[in-house]
């Protein structure tokens, strides 16, 4: 299972970030544009409402002004019926907005005591002004248009109505009362001047108000009845309060209706009074008490915002997808060479230094990596070749060193016992070589009939120089040890030879002893070597330390060595060794030490020389454990057995 790739992580990070940013921007943009759109629409709607109201009010005011002028004229004097007709005709001629005018006098009793009605009426017909006399049967004093101004004593606009006689147009009538000043100061009602206003222009005007695409305007009468409505069937037949009966108009809608016709200006958000949810702007048309309502369907308002948001969203999504594609491509371009590098690395790990590297070198970090990788490969290849060569050389040297070591070991005497035809001494010696060629050696030989020479030595350092120095030393000692010479004389001569032209400052520690086979007397010289142990016949173990130690061989030419002596009794032993024994280290970095040598010698005292020596080596090796042997372990053990009987 492959882990999450760089490409995957990049895509994840980028898409999370961009999506978050996208939605934040989109949300902000949506809210902001919705708010600004609402403001814009509100402003437009407000202006439109104002303009329309103003337009309608202008017409209505002019009609009212003309009618009131006529009423004031009638108050100023008494006119006969001919003059009244003339006044009416003139007024109608002067006011083209008015469809028809009448002057309806309050009923008066005629001479016969009958109620006489007089209400001359002029109206327009086919471009002319026509007089229509009142029919006596038409009892107008009971009609609203006459009764209400009389009662209210002020101009009254009627509810709109269809004038079924006059072309079936929507009409509204203004009734202005006129009075006569009584002597008592009381205003006596004399009649009503009426002006009929055809509302076809108004219907047209309002229906032409266009708000957005689907918005429309509605005109309401003081009672909430529709004066204009997109659906002509509603006109005068429906009102605000009947509109939503089907939905069981709640208190809320009813209150809203009351507010619309209450003669104030305002706006309402999100109401379904006119069916679909809409925004309403309304304003009163003063003289007639009407209300103009602009209906702005919300769906259309927010359609724009929604469309804008959708467009932005699509652009954003498309942009994000494109960016992701680019990210994928870039990460591929990064990871493809990396993948090839991984393959090349595996090849190299398998030892194929000629594995091909990605060739499409770009100028970026990946390109640099590829180049660096190529350099590394070449150098690694060179290095390995070098190493192979070096290893071969090293192996050859090691092999030669092994041979040198074998030769070195081969020059050590290995005849045990050393004097098979004599019984005075027994001897056993061995070198347990370290991995690296060392400079330890031992030697023993008969000098003359009575004297036997024992040597143990350790050359400073290791390797070929040490082994050469050892061979020289061994040869010199053997050549120098002649009958009649003490060990000190031998050491002095050998030292002089070794120290001469010793550029390398190599030196050798030597313990050299000459044993008198018949007496057991040992004359010895210790040139800087580890002092041997003397194992007495009674089991006591002594360290052969001299008063002051003598210098190793090879350091200074003119050193004169001195001898010391001891006498061995029958069964006593001399244990000679090199520092490979006492300085063998265990993993805890402790040395074997002289104390352990003594301990082991005591433990091994019943064994013969060979067994003792080998057991001692085994003890040292046990002690060292896993710690590699760093120095040769050399031991020589001699037992004086005295003269045979």
């Amino acid at each position, binding site marked *: 299972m492959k882990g999450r790739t760089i490409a995957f992580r990049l895509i994840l990070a980028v898409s999370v970030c961009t999506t978050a940013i996208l939605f934040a921007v989109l949300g902000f943009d949506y809210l902001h544009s919705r708010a600004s759109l609402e403001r814009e629409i509100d402003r437009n709607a407000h202006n439109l409402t104002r303009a329309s109201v103003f337009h309608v009010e202008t017409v209505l005011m002019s009609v009212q002004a003309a009618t009131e002028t006529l009423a004031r004229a009638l108050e100023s004097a008494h006119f006969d019926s001919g003059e009244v007709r003339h006044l009416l005709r003139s007024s109608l001629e002067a006011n083209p907005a008015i469809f028809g005018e009448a002057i309806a006098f309050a009923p008066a009793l005629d001479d016969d005591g009958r109620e006489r009605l007089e209400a001359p009426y002029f109206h327009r017909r086919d471009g002319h002004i026509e007089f229509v006399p009142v029919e006596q049967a038409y009892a107008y004093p009971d009609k609203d248009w006459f009764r209400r101004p009389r009662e209210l004593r002020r101009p009254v606009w009627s509810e709109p109505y269809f004038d079924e006689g006059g072309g079936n147009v929507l009409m509204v009538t203004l009734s202005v009362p006129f009075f006569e000043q009584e002597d008592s100061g009381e205003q006596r009602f004399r009649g009503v001047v009426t002006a009929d206003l055809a509302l076809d222009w108004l219907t047209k005007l309002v229906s032409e108000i266009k708000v957005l695409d689907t918005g429309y305007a509605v005109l309401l009468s003081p009672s909430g009845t529709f004066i204009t409505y997109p659906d002509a069937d509603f006109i005068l037949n429906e009102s605000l309060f009947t509109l939503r009966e089907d939905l069981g108009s709640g208190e809320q809608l009813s209150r809203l209706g009351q507010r619309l016709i209450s003669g104030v200006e305002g706006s309402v958000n999100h109401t379904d009074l006119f069916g679909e949810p809409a925004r309403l702007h309304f304003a009163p048309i003063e003289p007639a008490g009407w209300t103009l309502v602009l209906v702005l369907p919300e769906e259309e308002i927010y359609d724009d915002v929604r469309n804008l948001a959708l467009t932005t969203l699509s652009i954003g999504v498309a942009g994000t997808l494109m960016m992701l594609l680019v990210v994928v491509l870039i990460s591929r371009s990064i990871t493809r060479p990396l993948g090839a590098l991984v393959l090349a690395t595996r090849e190299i790990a398998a030892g194929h230094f000629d594995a091909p590297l990605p060739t499409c070198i770009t100028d970026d970090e990946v390109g640099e990596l590829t180049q660096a990788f190529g350099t590394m490969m070449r150098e690694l290849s060179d290095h390995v070749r070098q190493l192979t060569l070096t290893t071969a050389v090293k192996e050859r040297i090691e092999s030669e060193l092994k041979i040198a070591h074998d030769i070195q070991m081969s020059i050590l005497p290995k005849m045990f016992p050393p004097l098979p035809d004599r019984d005075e001494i027994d001897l056993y010696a061995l070198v347990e070589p370290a991995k690296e060629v060392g400079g330890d050696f031992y030697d023993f030989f008969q000098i003359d009939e009575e004297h036997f020479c024992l040597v143990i030595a*350790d*050359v*400073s*350092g*290791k390797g070929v120089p040490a082994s050469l120095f050892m061979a020289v030393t061994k040869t010199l000692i053997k050549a120098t040890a002649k009958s009649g010479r003490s060990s000190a004389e031998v050491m002095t001569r050998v030292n002089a030879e070794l120290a001469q032209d010793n550029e*390398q*400052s*190599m*030196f050798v*520690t030597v313990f050299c002893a000459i044993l008198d086979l018949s007496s057991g007397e040992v004359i010895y010289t210790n*040139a*800087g*070597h*580890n*002092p041997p142990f003397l194992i007495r016949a009674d089991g006591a173990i002594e360290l052969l330390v001299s008063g002051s*130690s*003598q*210098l*190793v061989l090879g*350091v*200074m030419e003119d050193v004169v060595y001195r001898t010391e002596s001891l006498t061995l009794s029958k069964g006593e032993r001399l244990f000679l060794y090199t*520092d490979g024994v006492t*300085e063998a280290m265990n993993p805890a970095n402790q040395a074997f030490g002289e104390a352990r040598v003594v301990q082991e010698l005591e433990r091994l005292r019943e064994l013969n020389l060979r067994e003792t020596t080998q057991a001692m080596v085994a003890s040292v090796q046990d002690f060292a454990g896993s710690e590699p042997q*760093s120095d040769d372990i050399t031991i020589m053990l001699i037992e004086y057995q005295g003269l045979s009987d």
Partner: protein
Amino acid sequence: MDIQISHEQQASVVAVSGKLDTLTAPAYEKAVTELIDSGTTQMVIDFAELSYISSAGLRSLLVTAKMLKTKAGKLALANVTGGVRDVFEMAGFGSIFAMYDSVPAALEGL
């Protein structure tokens, strides 16, 4: 092994710590050879922190002494104690090196 070299008025003091054996002797010889090549003739080697010296280490000291001798210089050893002292004594080096109990004493003795 670690080597710290300091310069007193009349001599260089070489403090050798750790082990001076076959493995570390070449590094010691290199450091001291450079010091002598740069003109040092009076030298004190401080063994206060030396825990072990092998025959290879002793040989390196002989090399140092010999190099200084050819330049008519002098070498003194300070703080040769414990196991190191035992090795010195056993090899008879006590008679060929001037050894002192402290660095100031060694500087004095040069």
